[in-house]
């Protein structure tokens, strides 16, 4: 702080210390700052030392504002070094800011000063607000002035503001020195929660609209969280315009999130009963084709199951989400030529009720039976229709004693749906324990989309699905079948819609991280089983087969395997057994 005082004092002396016409601030009583205010007053500054922080903030905001609105006809300000009355910095700043934002009626937080404090990062969750284009460009008639103060990097702490050279900052309003926190959404994305650890980057013009788009999305989510629905609606229009200007994955992600936000605002999410399970099966099928995520899960889970089944003459697999049964042909054929001959293989498939009386479960069973018959494996199949796994009773599954038959339980993207109803997951895990399985394989998305705060969920989901869409784009470049790619995107889009627009029991896409699942399984009486190097190498080789998907990485995480795109994990496979004792 002292350095700032000295420099302002020096500057004032150089400028000749001309008079000022100060009308703004009033001296308050009780100055206990050691005479600093007096010193400033003597020099001609009608500003208190305690106001210095405010002054610095305003300079910072001004810098941000100038940087971001450069192409809107105010660019002269960024190069203009002439200002009036350097001794009256506070008032000058206010006049500059009011020039940029003539009507300061916009106030999502209730007071201008509270925006400043949030901007300083004292409330890390809400520091980023939109930096949208001034309304005079779009001629927007909405009653909300959308020219909010652009958010600054939350990494700027209160200490660093004192280092701002107040006289120097007036001169260096250049575009390339502008620092704005960006949301890492492109393929160079790195993991990390956004509001706390945003990194300042030097912007180039082409990404500016993308940054604004992200800021707009987050601001809209924040408005929705604060129940400020009219403002959120106004932001949606901006988002729509910005999204169109983007290309590729960013555009698709923004479109889906905007649609989900719209659904949340207008409360028009279709009821769960109208979602067609067969349609979601088809979509997942296409996702299976285009993206290695599901294949990765299947390969690693099958390897764990094979290792658990070593030496057993009779084996039983219970699949909590049989869908099209794509995981099991590979397991059946691997069992067929395992040393010692194939076991008797029993498969129990569990799935939701299909409309139109189509018995999808039986079709899957029939196809697998044909495959098993062709390659000489004794095969039995039973299908069960359940709306929720929590309704499943262990007695229904006809479990034979462990000495006779080895049991494996498999769940792909299914357990997180149980978190929508309290008590369901505990019931299902106790059912699993009652089945006395030798191994339980769980494949889940690696993201925390189940936090209590909507904005956190939104940010996490934005980050996660941006990475997912990037990875799809990378894969899709060499795909001959663009229809499958489009369907995969719809599949992900439906998940986005569910995470953002729904609440309560309808929000079934309650993804949780591997750490959270580990804690839950540990407390439910399961011990982890390490997936071996065989699984790791097979998964790596599988990924190497995907052309154009060089961004995928297999990582080992304390015995579990994770598939990630660049450094962001997407899918995790973990294996468990009943705790000893």
């Amino acid at each position, binding site marked *: 702080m002292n350095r700032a005082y000295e420099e302002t004092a020096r500057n004032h002396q150089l400028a000749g210390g001309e008079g000022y016409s100060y009308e703004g601030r009033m001296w308050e009583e009780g100055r206990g700052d050691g005479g600093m205010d007096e010193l400033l007053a003597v020099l001609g500054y009608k500003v208190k030392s305690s106001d210095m922080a405010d002054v610095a903030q305003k300079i910072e905001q001004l810098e941000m504002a100038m940087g971001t609105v450069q192409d809107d006809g105010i660019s002269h300000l960024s190069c203009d070094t002439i200002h009036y009355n350097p001794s009256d910095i506070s008032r000058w700043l206010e006049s500059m800011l009011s020039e940029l934002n003539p009507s300061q009626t916009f106030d999502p937080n209730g007071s201008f000063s509270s925006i400043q404090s949030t901007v300083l990062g004292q409330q890390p969750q809400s520091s980023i607000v939109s930096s949208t284009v001034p309304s005079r460009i779009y001629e927007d008639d909405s009653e909300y002035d959308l020219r909010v103060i652009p958010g600054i990097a939350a990494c700027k702490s209160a200490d660093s503001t004192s280092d701002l050279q107040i006289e120097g900052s007036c001169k260096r309003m250049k575009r390339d020195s502008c620092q704005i926190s960006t949301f890492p959404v492109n393929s160079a994305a790195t993991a990390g929660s956004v509001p706390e650890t945003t990194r300042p980057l030097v912007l180039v013009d082409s990404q500016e609209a993308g940054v604004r788009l992200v800021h707009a999305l987050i601001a809209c989510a924040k408005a929705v969280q604060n129940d400020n629905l009219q403002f959120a609606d106004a932001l949606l229009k901006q988002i729509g315009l910005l999204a169109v200007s983007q290309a590729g994955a960013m555009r698709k992600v923004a479109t889906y999130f905007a649609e989900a936000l719209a659904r949340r605002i207008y409360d028009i999410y279709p009821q769960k009963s109208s979602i067609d399970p067969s349609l979601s099966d088809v979509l997942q*099928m296409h996702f*299976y*084709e*285009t993206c*290695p995520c599901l*294949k990765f899960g299947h*390969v690693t889970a*099958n390897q764990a199951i094979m290792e658990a089944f070593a030496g057993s003459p009779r084996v039983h697999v219970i699949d909590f989400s049989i869908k099209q*049964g*794509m995981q099991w*042909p*590979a397991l*059946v*054929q*691997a069992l*067929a*030529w*395992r*040393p010692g*001959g*194939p076991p008797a293989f029993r498969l129990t498939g569990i799935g939701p009720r299909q409309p139109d009386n189509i018995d999808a479960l039986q*079709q899957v069973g029939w*196809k*697998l039976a*044909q*495959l098993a018959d*062709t*390659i*000489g494996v004794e095969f039995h199949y039973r299908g069960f229709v359940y709306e929720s796994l929590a309704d499943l009773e262990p007695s229904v599954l006809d479990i034979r004693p462990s000495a006779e038959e080895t049991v494996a339980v498999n769940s792909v993207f299914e357990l997180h749906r149980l978190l929508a109803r309290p008590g369901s997951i505990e019931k299902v895990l106790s059912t699993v324990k009652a089945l006395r399985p030798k191994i339980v394989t769980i494949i889940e998305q690696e993201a925390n989309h189940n936090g209590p705060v909507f904005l956190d969920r939104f940010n996490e989901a934005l980050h996660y699905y941006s990475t997912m869409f990037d990875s799809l784009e990378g*894969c899709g470049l*060499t*795909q*001959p*079948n663009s*229809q*499958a790619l489009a369907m995969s995107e719809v599949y992900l889009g439906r998940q986005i819609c569910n995470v953002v627009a729904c609440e309560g029991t309808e929000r079934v896409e309650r993804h949780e991280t591997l750490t959270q699942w580990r804690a839950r399984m540990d407390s439910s009486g399961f011990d982890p089983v390490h997936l071996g190097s*065989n699984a*790791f*190498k*097979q998964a*790596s*080789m*599988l*990924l*190497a*087969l*995907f*052309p154009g998907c*060089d961004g995928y*990485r*297999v990582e080992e995480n304390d015995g579990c395997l994770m598939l990630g795109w660049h450094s962001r994990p997407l899918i995790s496979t973990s294996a468990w057994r009943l705790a000893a004792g």
Partner: protein
Amino acid sequence: MAEGRRTIIGAKKPKFCINDHRDLLVEIMKRLDARSLGVAACVCRLWCSITRNDALWEHLCFRHALSPPSGVRTVVVALGGYKRLYMVCVEPVLSRLGTVKIGLDGDSGGGGTDGDSEVVRRVWRRYGTQLSLSLFSVDYYERLGARPDDSSASSLTFLCEPVNLGRC
């Protein structure tokens, strides 16, 4: 006439015709790559029938991998044969693995391409059989449900790259 001696003028020289020696032909063809086998199949009917022999393709499939256990043959034959296994699974995998690195031991950036491809080939030798058989079984499974004219849905489309014959 002396049978052991050959004279340039007038004597009958026993001609060596490879087509008379089918076993030799098979031995030679075992050492060819897939494209050459395809070319050989166009030579004459005899060669065509020999190249259709699945044993040749079995040899080709496992040329770069550890020889699989005995039970594999029945499985592969049942699922469509070694020729199909090669065309659908092994060939794309081998051609892909020749050009990519696998991040097996952490990040394998920095090592020379020779070292990387050696690692890749080693991994392929151990695990390639399992992987290609898994893919093959998925292929069979999908063909079970598909109608004869339905060629759209296939989870192995990611292996289908336009073949660049100039690469051979």
